[in-house]
């Protein structure tokens, strides 16, 4: 250091000390970052909390930058996202970071809760830490949902629609809740403004408040020690033993215990950047316009399991899925530290906890997989854009070919595939002639059944005849049409068509 620098340095030190004497920053630093933790807690399993905080910080930063361009109006929102994607330098990257940051946050919150649950960290005296964490989970999911609405594309539109439909079923106050959420009885110009206010003001504010409480509780009640099988939690002795452990075997979180957190957060940041760079942002898809029927609206990843659960549950059980199950889940989650307050912490002595985690992950994982892969919507363009494979055309008589045209023209292909091509809401029809006989097919077409609407009012008798003739012809070569078991010989006689190939037909 040169002599010339010295007065500046000493001035800076003086200013710093002046600030320190008034704010006592060193004391605050020691009490927070430097708070003592058990040595055993410096574990890779204990890094999920700080990773969640990193995700939230990234969401705040990228969210502020997005808000500089995003216009929260029904007319402008979609356009401002296109501007970010295609014109604003690195706007797409910003969107991608915000999108993947959101997905990562939900996943890591789940991992964090799983670890806390399996390691018994919710037990005495950390009940309130757990409860604030549960509320933070719900707030994170709410942020994720309101965030997908910001895209204001078809996913957002139908997502709000489903959200409103669920809210509308709340007993007594359903209509009022829908009105409050949407700014009216239906999705309109006020809806996006309301969700924007929730997404950027109300929910982040609530998260900041709850995170502050959560961290305050972590400092006050200490980081959970790495549990040892056989060591029980007793309300009367736990805190004394914990303090003794800190005294004998503790170390400050910064600098001694933070190493693994830094590495884990670094890896997470790289993963998020990689996802943003290599996969990119989501959408915007088709604009939020109910007239655009060719859309397969799906929610973002965190809600796909809910989509498939709602779609798979039997008709009439919506109230159970949307109200009874969540109520039980909330009671169980919030009540957990009271139901299981003391005793063993280590998961190896709590087999039920392992079972609960496995069942939860399997259920959510499989439902999410079904949500991604399942054919939840008809393929609305299949009738005009999906050709029929040659093997389902050759050898058909003129009337059967008219039936094939009806299968397209009446948009049956939107729900039914033939030869694996077309919609998949209903069964594939490639071999329907071997499964169902002519009277059964006529009845099904006219009256519907299962999830299929009745077409009796929209088809003429001749159209039904032609369509069913074609359906009867859809069966493997050298197989007879499906028989009526009661009168097999008659069924065989009335069933027309043979699955012939290459015959001269036309017409």
């Amino acid at each position, binding site marked *: 250091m040169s002599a010339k620098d010295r007065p500046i340095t000493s001035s800076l030190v003086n200013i710093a000390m002046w600030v320190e004497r008034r704010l006592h920053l060193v004391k605050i630093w020691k009490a927070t970052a430097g708070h003592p933790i058990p040595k055993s807690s410096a574990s890779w399993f204990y890094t999920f909390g700080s990773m969640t905080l990193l995700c939230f910080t990234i969401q705040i930063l990228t969210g502020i930058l997005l808000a500089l361009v995003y216009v929260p109006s029904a007319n402008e929102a979609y356009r401002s996202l296109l501007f970010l994607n295609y014109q604003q330098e690195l706007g797409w990257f910003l969107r991608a970071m915000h999108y993947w940051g959101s997905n990562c946050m939900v996943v890591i919150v789940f991992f964090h809760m799983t670890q806390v649950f399996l390691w018994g960290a919710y037990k005495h005296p950390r009940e309130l830490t757990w409860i604030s964490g549960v509320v933070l989970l719900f707030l994170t999911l709410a942020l994720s949902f309101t965030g997908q609405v910001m895209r204001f594309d078809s996913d957002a539109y139908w997502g709000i629609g489903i959200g409103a439909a669920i809210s509308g079923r709340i007993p007594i106050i359903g209509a009022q809740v829908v009105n409050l959420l949407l700014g009216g009885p239906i999705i309109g110009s006020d809806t996006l403004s309301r969700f924007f206010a929730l997404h950027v003001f109300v929910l982040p504010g609530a998260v900041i408040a709850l995170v502050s409480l959560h961290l305050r509780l972590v400092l006050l009640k200490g980081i959970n020690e790495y549990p040892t099988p056989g060591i029980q939690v007793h309300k009367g002795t736990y805190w004394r033993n914990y303090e003794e452990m800190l005294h004998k075997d503790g170390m400050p979180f910064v600098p001694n215990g933070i190493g693994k957190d830094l590495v884990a957060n670094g890896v997470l940041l790289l993963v998020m950047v990689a996802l943003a760079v290599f996969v*990119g942002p989501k959408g915007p898809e088709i604009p939020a316009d109910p007239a655009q029927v060719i859309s397969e609206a799906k929610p973002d990843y965190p809600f796909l399991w809910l989509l498939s659960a709602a779609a798979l549950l039997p008709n009439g059980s919506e109230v159970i899925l949307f109200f009874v199950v969540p109520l039980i889940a909330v009671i169980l989650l919030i009540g957990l530290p009271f139901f299981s307050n003391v005793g063993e912490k280590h998961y190896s002595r709590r087999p039920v906890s392992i079972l609960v985690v496995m069942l939860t992950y399997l259920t959510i994982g499989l439902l999410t997989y079904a949500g991604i892969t399942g054919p939840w919507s008809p393929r609305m363009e299949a009738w005009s*854009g*999906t050709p029929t494979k040659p093997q389902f*055309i050759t*050898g058909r008589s003129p009337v059967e070919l*008219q039936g094939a045209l009806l299968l397209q023209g009446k948009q049956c292909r939107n729900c039914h595939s033939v030869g694996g091509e077309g919609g998949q809401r209903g069964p594939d029809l490639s071999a329907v002639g071997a499964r169902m006989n002519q009277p059964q097919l006529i009845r099904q077409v006219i009256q519907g059944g299962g999830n299929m609407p009745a077409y009796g009012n929209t088809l003429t008798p001749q159209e039904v005849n032609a369509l069913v003739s074609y359906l009867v012809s859809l069966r493997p070569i050298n197989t007879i049409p499906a028989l009526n078991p009661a009168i097999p010989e008659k069924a065989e006689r009335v069933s027309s068509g043979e699955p012939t190939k290459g015959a*001269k*037909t036309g*017409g």
Partner: protein
Amino acid sequence: MQARTLYSILLFGGLGFLCGCDRLPGKPKEEDRWKPPSEIKDFALLFNTNCRGCHSNGQTLSASISMNNPPYLAVVPKEVMHKTIETGIPGTQMPTYSDKAGGSLTEEQVNILVEGIYNWAKGHEAPTDNLPPYSAALGDAERGKAVFAQACASCHGSGGEGTKGKGGAVDKAYLSLVSDQYLRTVVIVGRPELGMPGFREYVPGKPMTGEEISDVVSWLASRREGPAPGQSAKTAEIAPKTQPSTPNE
């Protein structure tokens, strides 16, 4: 010092990677951007999304007549094709496509479709000698029965009821679903891809004349029970025995 150099390379390299490279896989591509259906101007895309479900592009088979079909295109006037796409054919599975008539395609898109379809025939034009007119009045059903017996019965049976493995032409449901014009067009151009030849080949060395075609269509129409597609029973009774110059499905 070495570590600092490494960090600098990583930092500036990473920033350069993000800022300078337009080929990052996550960057949204212009071609993936959603466009309103009215902005689609590509013939192949328009055909594949609107027509391909029923009409072949010549590469495979289809339930209705292939559009990549020079003999067919030699018979059907362009303006009829345009009108058919615009307004559809009432009573059949050919829907309205023009946005002026409640469909989804703009005038420009209909023109692109018509031009694209006729471009398929360029360089492969079918012979036009002896070509019967696309549309004509119905002929004499009695004479048509004899023409049918001579030209069509080998495949469709003497009464049109079909032979083993070959379809009947007088199925009541079939006749009630196709217009007279459709019958006429199919008699003229056939469905070669399905084994049905055109008017030149039914009787070897003797192309079917326009009059014979009108007669045979008349006989087929006489076997229909009830009105033709798009006609009410009353209209069918008082309608002149001419074929409308609307098109086939």
